[in-house]
C-alpha cells in the first residue's frame, strides 16, 4: 500500500443559503486518503456525510478551504475540467442504485464509459463483463434492473462505479437500502475489490457493523471530524 495521498482537503467548509439565513454544514474538514485505503465515514443523519462525499466527488463546490486530488487543484478547476476529472478518476455508489431502467445490467455497467466516449466499444463490453463476473452476476448481463433484486441491483451499481478504473470510489450509504444479508454481500464485494484492484473506498454509514469492516474510520459530528 502506497503512502502517498490521493486527495487531501483542509479547512473545507460548506454553507447553504437557507432563505435569509445561512447554514454552515461543513465547519472546516481536514482529511486525506492514500491509495488503496478503505475508509468508513461514520456519523448520525444530518452530520454532513453526503455533503462531504458530494464535494469530494466534484459534484458540488466547497465554500472554502483547499481541495486537491492527484495533483489537481479542484477548487480552481473549471466545471468542464471537473466533469472530465470526475469521469476519469472517481466512481460513485449511492443509497439507491439509480440504474437506468431502459438498459440491461451490462449496458448499465458500461454507461459511465460510454457516456464519456460517445459510444459503446468492445473493450468496454469486455471490461463490463469482467466486472459483472467480479460482482457475482455473470448470468444477469442481459437483465433489466426491474428484473433483479435490490442486492443484485446494488452489485451492478458497484460494477458500474468501477468501469473507468477510478482511483477512489465514493459510496454514500451503499447498503442503507438493503437487508442485512444483501448488505453483507455488497460489503464483502467492496472489500475484495479493494484488495484485488487497490481501489480506495470512502464509505459513509451510520451503521457500526458496516464501519467495522473498514480498515480506517472517521467520525463526523455536526460538520466536524471528531475522531480520525
Amino acid at each position, binding site marked *: 500500500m502506497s503512502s502517498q495521498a490521493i486527495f487531501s482537503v483542509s479547512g473545507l467548509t460548506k454553507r447553504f443559503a437557507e432563505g435569509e439565513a445561512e447554514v454552515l454544514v461543513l465547519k472546516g474538514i481536514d482529511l486525506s486518503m492514500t491509495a488503496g485505503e478503505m475508509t468508513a465515514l461514520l456519523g448520525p443523519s444530518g452530520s454532513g456525510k*453526503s455533503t462531504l462525499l458530494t464535494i469530494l466527488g466534484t459534484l458540488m463546490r466547497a465554500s472554502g478551504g483547499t481541495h486537491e486530488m492527484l495533483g489537481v487543484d479542484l477548487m480552481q478547476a473549471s466545471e468542464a475540467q471537473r*466533469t472530465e476529472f470526475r469521469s476519469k478518476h472517481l466512481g460513485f455508489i*449511492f443509497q439507491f442504485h*439509480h440504474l437506468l431502467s431502459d438498459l440491461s445490467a451490462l449496458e448499465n455497467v458500461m454507461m459511465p464509459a460510454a*457516456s464519456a466516449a460517445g459510444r459503446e466499444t468492445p473493450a468496454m463490453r469486455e471490461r463490463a463483463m469482467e466486472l459483472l463476473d467480479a460482482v457475482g452476476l455473470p448470468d444477469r448481463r442481459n437483465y433489466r434492473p426491474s428484473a433483479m433484486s435490490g442486492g443484485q441491483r446494488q452489485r451492478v451499481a458497484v460494477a458500474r462505479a468501477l468501469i473507468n478504473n477510478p482511483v477512489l470510489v465514493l459510496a454514500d450509504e451503499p447498503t442503507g437500502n438493503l437487508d442485512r444479508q444483501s448488505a453483507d454481500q455488497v460489503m464483502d464485494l467492496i472489500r475484495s475489490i479493494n484488495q484485488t484492484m487497490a481501489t480506495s473506498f470512502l464509505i459513509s454509514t451510520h451503521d457500526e457493523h458496516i464501519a467495522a469492516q473498514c480498515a480506517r474510520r472517521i467520525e463526523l459530528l455536526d460538520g466536524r471530524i471528531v475522531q480520525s
Partner: protein
Amino acid sequence: MSPYAVKLAIRHLLSHPGQTALLMAGVALGVSVFIFMSALIGGLATLLTLRTVGSIPHIVLEMPDRDPVTLSPNAHKQVVRQKDLSRRDQIAIWQPVIPIIEQTSGVTAVSPQIRGSAFVERGQTVVPVGVIGVMPGKLSDIADIEAAILDGSSNLPADGILIGSRLARDLGLRVGQVIRLSSDRGRVRSFRIGGIFTLGIAGADRQTVYMNFTTARALYDLSTGISRIEIKVKPAIDAADIAERLRRSTGLKATAWTEDNAQLFEGLDAQARTGTIIKAFSLVTIIVGIASAMLLSIVRRQSEIGIMRAMGASNGLVVSIFVLEGTLIGFIGAIVGAVTAWFALLPLPPVTEVSSGGLPIDPQQGDFLLAITLTTLAATLASILPARRAARIDPVEAIGT
C-alpha cells in the same frame, strides 16, 4: 450526434412501446389532417376552377379599343382623337397570327370566331341570341358542345344551326325544325336545327347558337376578317401571364378569364388561407403534444438523467438524446400519417368525376413531403426546450442523497 445518444434515444422509445405508439399516433393524426386539408383545398380549387373555366375561353383576343385618346394634354388647348366608329371591330389580318398563338407555351386550343347578335323569329315571338361561327373541327375547342348535345348531332352544314336547350324549350323547338334568323347587319336566313345542347349554364343554353364559320361570314358581311380569337390554356390559372405575352406578340387586346372572375379568385385565396391556418394549427398541436410529452418524460426520468450527468455524461449528450427522441417520434409519426393518408385518399374518385355532395379531394395536392418535413422540424423544435431543461438538471438534487 454521438452513436450513444442514438442508442439511448431509440432504446427509450422501444422500452415504452405503448407510450411511443400513442405519441406517434398523435403525430400521425396531425399529419393526416395536414395532408387531408391540402388535398381538399387543392381539389376544391381545381374543381371550382374547372367548373368556372371549363366552358369559357381562358383568353379572348380582340382588336384593341379605339377609345378617345388625349394627344396633347395642355392647360389651354386639348387635342383629342375621337373614338373611331367608321371601322368595325374586326381582326382583319388574322391568319398569320394563328401560328404565333399556337406556338405560345401553355396554349392548348385556338378558335377563330365570328360573333354577332341576331334575332330568332318563330311565329310572333322574337328572341335575341348571340351567334358564334366556328371553324370546322373547332366546335368543341372552347366549350365541349359535342359532349353537351342532348338531341340531334353536332354536324354543322351550311344551313345547320345548334341551339341551347333553354332556347329550344322557350320556343318549343325540336331537331329538324327550321327557324329564321335575322342578323344585326340586316341579313335574314333560314336554318335547320341540327342539334340541341345543354352546357348547364343558363346564359349559354338560352342565348347562344352555333353555326358554320362560312355561313356566319355571310350573315355578318365579313369577307375576310373575324371577330375574335378564343384560346384555352393550361394551367388555366396562368391565363393572365399568357394573355400578357400574347398581347405583346400579337398587338391584339388580350383579356384573361381571371379579369372577369375576381370573386372566384378571392374565394380561392380565402380558402387557401383557411387551409393554411388549419395546417398551422395541426403543426402547433404536434409541437405542444411532443413538447409536453418530452417534459413529462424528463420529469419522470430526472434521477436517471442526474446519474448520467454525475457519471460523466456531457450536456451535449443529454440534449441530443432528447432532441433525437422528439425528432424520431415526429419523423416516424409523420411517415405513418402520410402513408395512412395516402391509402385513405387512394380510392377517392378524381376531382373531375366527383359527384355533387362528395368532397373534391385531390391526393396529388396532398403536400406529403412538405407535411413530413414540417412535422419533423416541428418535432425537433418541440424537443429542444425540454432537452435543454434536462441538461440543466443538477445531479446532486436529482440523485437526492
